């Protein structure tokens, strides 16, 4: 089938064709993660940073970076695990020390139950990291005013949530997301909670610039096929947005001539 030729887009001046971010967590193996990234056309991939295991049990072969070609993918370290702005900044700096690009998916969510982001610490960390020259992609709740403040603070994108991470609940925050998209001057990437291709398509139809999927792909019975399913759903939703969706009508509108067969 021909491609849908959706518009390219960019973050901080770097242009991308794919509108699907893929998180690397929860895959059964790094090899499976690698082949999944390869077959869905994604160009944006997130990784995390964690304390090394000092018990000597760390598998030396398991360096995730060995499985992600930086020439092909924009690798974006996240700051999950950070409890506040200061820790998030320290993690971001370590990413750079690791030779990773100076991009960071800012995540500050102290509560382990819903993993919801802290708006105050997130804005504070964004200001600090922007000052240090980072390209900052903050994970945030669906709060339109916070989105504007992050934009003013120099965030490269906003990444509002659709529902709690890994919940697969879909666009629970739709009403506020629509306002964020309407008002934002920077790309809006819907992150967290999208559990089905239809959720991703719906997010794109709303006008989101991209979506990030991790759990729904990584834990699928066949992550490669599920990743492709999400990838084409994202393209479909984006194409529909670019073309403009038909108006929703209360009444019916005939698709066959309405003159009767016998009676006219």
């Amino acid at each position: 089938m021909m491609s849908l030729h959706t518009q390219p887009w960019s973050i901080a001046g770097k242009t991308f064709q794919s509108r699907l971010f893929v998180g690397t967590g929860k895959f059964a193996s790094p090899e499976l993660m690698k082949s999944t990234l390869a077959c869905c056309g994604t160009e944006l991939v997130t990784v995390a940073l964690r304390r090394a295991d000092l018990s000597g049990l760390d598998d030396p072969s398991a360096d995730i970076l060995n499985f992600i070609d930086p020439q092909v993918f924009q690798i974006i370290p996240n700051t999950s695990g950070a409890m506040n702005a200061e820790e998030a900044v320290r993690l971001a700096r370590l990413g750079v020390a690791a030779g990773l690009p100076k991009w960071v998916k800012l995540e500050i969510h102290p509560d382990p139950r819903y993993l919801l982001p802290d708006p105050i610490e997130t804005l504070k960390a964004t200001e600090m990291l922007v000052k240090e020259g980072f390209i900052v992609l903050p994970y945030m709740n669906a709060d339109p005013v916070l989105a504007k403040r992050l934009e003013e603070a120099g965030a490269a994108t906003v990444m509002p949530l659709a529902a709690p991470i890994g919940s697969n609940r879909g666009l629970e925050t739709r009403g506020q997301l629509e306002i964020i998209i309407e008002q934002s001057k920077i790309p809006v990437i819907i992150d967290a909670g999208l559990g089905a291709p239809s959720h991703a398509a719906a997010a794109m139809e709303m006008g989101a610039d991209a979506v990030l999927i991790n759990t729904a792909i990584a834990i699928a019975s066949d992550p490669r096929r599920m990743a492709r399913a999400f990838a084409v759903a994202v393209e479909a939703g984006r194409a529909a947005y670019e073309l403009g969706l038909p108006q929703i009508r209360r009444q019916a509108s005939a698709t066959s001539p309405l003159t009767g067969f016998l009676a006219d």
Partner: protein
Amino acid sequence: MSQVKIALFVNGKAQQVPKDALIVELLEELKLSPKMILVEHNNRALLRSEWDGIKLEHGDRLELIRVVAGG
């Protein structure tokens, strides 16, 4: 004669190393492959190029970090 030891805090835990040990020596001691480890020294993230310039001292706080899978 016995060699002088100093105590560091590595990932929050006390760790004995010889005085003036280098970061690479610490990693060796811990059986961590240097090319996979990121180091923060007294709250300062270090570039690999900076490692050898640092002589570990008593009470230094180090974070040894790895890049892992994440969403």
